[in-house]
């Protein structure tokens, strides 16, 4: 699986001031609201900057989706993973910097594992995690993996914001992705396979 390093993605990861500027511009991609500008030249800059913001917006979403795909697609191909498209609009992927696929364990029709790749660009990290979801009760559950099992697989059990256990990888540095994208993709694939094996068996 190939994860591309684009100019826009590189600048967004490496330069915090550029990142803040893009974060400020992306909500204006709807083009419904002007900003107060003093001259035609500044308006040209605004228009040109929006084009760059659109490119970065595209590249970042492509990166998150590719990271998810590289991590989980091979390991889950036998399960027919699904995309929860209703909860993953492009703006949600951008705002949350995460993308997930859903896999139904073979022994259950009511439960599903959500396998997620999530980035934190201000901290320069990306990590993978698995959560268990009860489709009938519309609620999340504890992932049934012990800390010992997780440690043995080079993973860890952590609590989400609601105090529920989920299985998580270490936090991978995005700077490694910029310098060695192929190695980064291979690491994700390996980690994703271990994580998938532990929750799906």
């Amino acid at each position, binding site marked *: 699986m190939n994860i591309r390093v*684009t*100019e*826009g993605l590189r*600048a967004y990861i490496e330069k*915090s*001031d*550029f990142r*803040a*500027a*893009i*974060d*400020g*511009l992306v*909500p*204006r991609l709807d083009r419904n*609201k002007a*900003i*107060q500008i*003093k001259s035609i030249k*500044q308006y040209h*800059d*605004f228009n*040109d*900057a929006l*084009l*760059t*913001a*659109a*490119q*970065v917006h595209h590249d970042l979403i492509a990166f998150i989706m590719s990271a998810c795909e590289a991590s989980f697609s091979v390991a889950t191909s036998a399960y027919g993973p699904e995309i929860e498209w209703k909860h993953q609009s492009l703006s949600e992927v951008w705002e949350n910097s995460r993308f997930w696929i859903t896999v139904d364990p073979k022994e259950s029709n009511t439960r599903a594992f959500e396998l997620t790749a999530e980035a934190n660009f*201000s901290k320069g990290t990306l990590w993978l995690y698995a959560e268990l979801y009860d489709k009938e009760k519309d609620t999340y559950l504890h992932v049934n993996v012990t800390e010992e099992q997780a440690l043995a697989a080079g993973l860890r059990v952590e609590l989400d914001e609601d105090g529920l256990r989920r299985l998580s990888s270490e936090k991978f540095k995005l700077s490694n992705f910029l310098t060695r994208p192929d190695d980064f993709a291979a690491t994700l694939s390996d980690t994703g396979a271990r994580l998938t094996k532990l929750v799906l068996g």
Partner: protein
Amino acid sequence: MKKMKNEDVLWDQVQATNGYGLRSVFQGLSSSALNFVFELDKKHVLQIKNQGKNIKSIFDSQAVSRLFGLNHPNHAFKSPDLDWGVQLTEPQITGALAHLLAPDDECRKAERVVNFVKSIGCKLPITYEDAQISQVYAELPASYGKQRGRIDLLLQWENSSKLQILAIEAKFGHALSNDQLTLYRGFLRNRQRDAKIDYVVLALDETVMENVKKSLRSKWRFVPWHGLWLQFERNGYDEDQSLSIFMRQLWGRINGFSQKEKK
């Protein structure tokens, strides 16, 4: 050597290509390579290469820099984005602004005040010398008739022996009352009869002016927070981190370009 393709057919294909792909491939080839591989004459080779030159690159980080003024070394976006877990209130922001616009160093004060006055679109005359001895007040007590209030931010300076006043009512989503605006205007006109006064409502978005009486709307002009912020940053300022960190916090408080309160 047998021609690979008829020159004109190839040229038509190049012309018909509506995208970057083929043209950028051609662009990457030297003229001699184009000449050799496709046996094009020099005129066509030049035409193809010039066509490539007109393609605007989509990714242009300089455009972003120009818009925000990121080339300034002390830009707010180069400061840490601190998470204090609380939102700054209106009085805290105007208080901090008044404090930061008038540091002890007179040169810094002059640069900041002039930058602020220009950035808010104030047309009153001001020089660096005027700004050095200007006065900046936050929450200035004001009374007019029986009414009492406080002017959020007020800058005053003398230019050619004439008093100039920039009076600002700063808002973050709260309703603007006609009484407040009448009070501040009445107070300043009573107190400084000969002064030139610029009245500004500084708010997230212009809907704040909707309930303002027509007679007052012609006296008070609306300025969006993001407009002031952007111009102030584009103009650049000194290396005092207190100012750049505050401006970074202010960007978060005004919710960037969104022109509405953060949910």
